[in-house]
């Protein structure tokens, strides 16, 4: 049952990815403006242009180009970036860790903040504290990450300049890292001075990304907690003499968390989507920032590669959440 569900999901995932590949391929080839003409100096001859077009495979039909590209992708060859003249896969893998670190730090913040306010709100249900949490989460949800980023830049970059507002790490620092996962590696190497510098750069973009998700988690989890708190087994725990906080944390939370989990999965993909503009805003050297440059430079192979990597990330997260849900939900596990 579980295996069958997994295989069906895997198949739809591949169909989705194929769809993304087709859409992005068609969209960028409809684009007016010749990327080759932009690469060459003004005096280039027609022969030069033709030679370069052939080099990048742009002289073939669109269907031929698609299948050449697709067979390359299947072998792990995403082509060569036109603007940076490097292997696309290498460029993407160089930048992806920065984006993943940012997204994961933001996710942890969102879960911590959303979870805490949900538990407090459920414990203080019907009071001014709950009303305050509702108003705060309503505002956090309605204002998108882009605007939160700007608000944070003003507050903690200009008014009270305690955090850095641009870049991933201070440029004068000597980095001993062998991977691109700077934050995780700095923790492993116990270079806490570097961890602090990285966090000082990462904190504001991460908070901007985390706030809307924290609000969603807070609202949904609080709602499910309040529903669960009226059930018999929770009442029983209360009769046994547990405090309200203990009741919520020990008894109610594990049953109320399941619906939130599914939603967090979907919302996490939105958060990753948000990294594109938030990275731009904070000049953070991640995949999203590179993507915007790639679009502006009409770097077709690089755009294709980045979009496909984002799409792969999205469907993998959805798959993981789906499987986790199936494993945790007793009805599906035994069904």
């Amino acid at each position: 049952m579980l295996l069958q569900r997994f295989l069906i999901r895997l198949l739809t995932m591949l169909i989705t990815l194929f769809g993304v590949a087709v859409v992005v391929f068609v969209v960028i080839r409809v684009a007016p403006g010749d990327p080759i003409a932009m690469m060459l100096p003004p005096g280039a001859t027609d022969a030069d242009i033709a030679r370069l077009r052939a080099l990048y495979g742009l002289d073939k039909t669109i269907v031929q180009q698609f299948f050449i590209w697709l067979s390359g992708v299947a072998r792990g060859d995403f082509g060569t970036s036109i603007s940076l003249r490097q292997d696309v896969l290498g460029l993407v893998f160089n930048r992806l860790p920065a984006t993943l670190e940012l997204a994961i730090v933001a996710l942890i913040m969102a879960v911590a903040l959303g979870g805490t306010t949900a538990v407090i709100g459920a414990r203080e249900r019907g009071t001014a504290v709950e009303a305050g949490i509702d108003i705060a989460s309503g505002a956090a949800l309605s204002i998108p990450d882009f605007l939160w980023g700007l608000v944070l830049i003003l507050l903690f970059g200009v008014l009270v300049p305690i955090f850095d507002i641009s870049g991933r790490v201070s440029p004068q620092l000597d980095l001993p890292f062998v991977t691109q996962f700077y934050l995780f590696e700095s923790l492993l190497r116990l270079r806490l001075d570097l961890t602090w510098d990285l966090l000082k750069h990462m904190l504001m973009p991460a908070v901007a990304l985390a706030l809307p998700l924290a609000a969603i988690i807070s609202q949904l989890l609080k709602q499910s907690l309040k529903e669960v708190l009226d059930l018999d087994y929770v009442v029983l725990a209360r009769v046994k003499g547990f405090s309200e906080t203990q009741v919520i944390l020990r008894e109610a939370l594990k049953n109320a968390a399941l619906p939130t989990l599914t939603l967090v999965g979907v919302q996490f993909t939105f958060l990753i989507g948000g990294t594109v503009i938030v990275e731009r805003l904070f000049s953070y050297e991640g995949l999203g920032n590179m993507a915007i440059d790639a679009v502006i430079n009409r770097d077709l192979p690089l755009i294709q590669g980045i979009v496909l990597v984002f799409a792969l990330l999205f469907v993998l997260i959805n798959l993981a959440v789906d499987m986790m849900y199936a494993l945790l939900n007793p009805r599906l596990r035994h069904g």
Partner: protein
Amino acid sequence: MDEGRTPRRGISPRLWLAGGWLMLALLAAIFAPLVAPQDPLAQDLMLERLPPFWMNGAEPGYWLGTDSLGRDLLSRLIFGGRIAFIVAFAAAIAACMVGSTLGLVAGYFGGWADRIISRIVDVWMAFPPVLFAILLVAVLGTGLSSVILAIAIIDWTRFCRVIRAETMGQSRMDYVENARIAGYGRIGIMLREVLPNVVPSIVALLSLEMGIAVIVEAILSFVNLSISTDDPTWGGIIAEGRLSIHQAWWVLVFPLITLILTVLSFSQFGEALKTRFDPVLR
């Protein structure tokens, strides 16, 4: 939803505030040439980076100060509102038409129609929306119609998913079955019986989408991909403000406040409309 939180009758103060701000901003945008104190494009290097009216060094007539080229900030915000509102209305309505129609068809007919439409939605959801928007505008070329088209192409899925689910729920209701027994055609039932019942959701989503469209337009002009660079846009002013943040904070603060108020108002408006239209909640 909490019943206690939403007033049952009358208009809540939140709706007044939201509606009031939107009306004010909309009227200012429509009558921009009459309302704006200065020419939004007029540069004057003698007047560069003037602070807002309450600070030392402010000039009368330049209420919110000027940017690094000496252009009046208030006038630029008022004229920028024109583009924001045109994009909000046009893009949201276009996305709504496409998304609601497909959602209605998928939810009501089910079967192959549903499977194909849902698969397309899945593919669309696998794109990072901001990157997709930037990509589309780069492909379509900058300009007002490209921005509107790009937002509609991306955001129809929001309408489609919600309306599909709602339509599915409605289709299982007794009244739909009764209409079928009474001999109405399937398309007739869909349009005359099911559609009116999903309209509250459509209206609420429409208002929400207008707020989203304003943000997307701001993001596109922030990365310099929206309208021509001459016309003032809220995102364009923000991009300038981000660059001169340490010399002239007001160039970032005022467009930011304008955007936040507009987005909050659209979302509050949508929520309020939904509760007003929804027979169960009312």
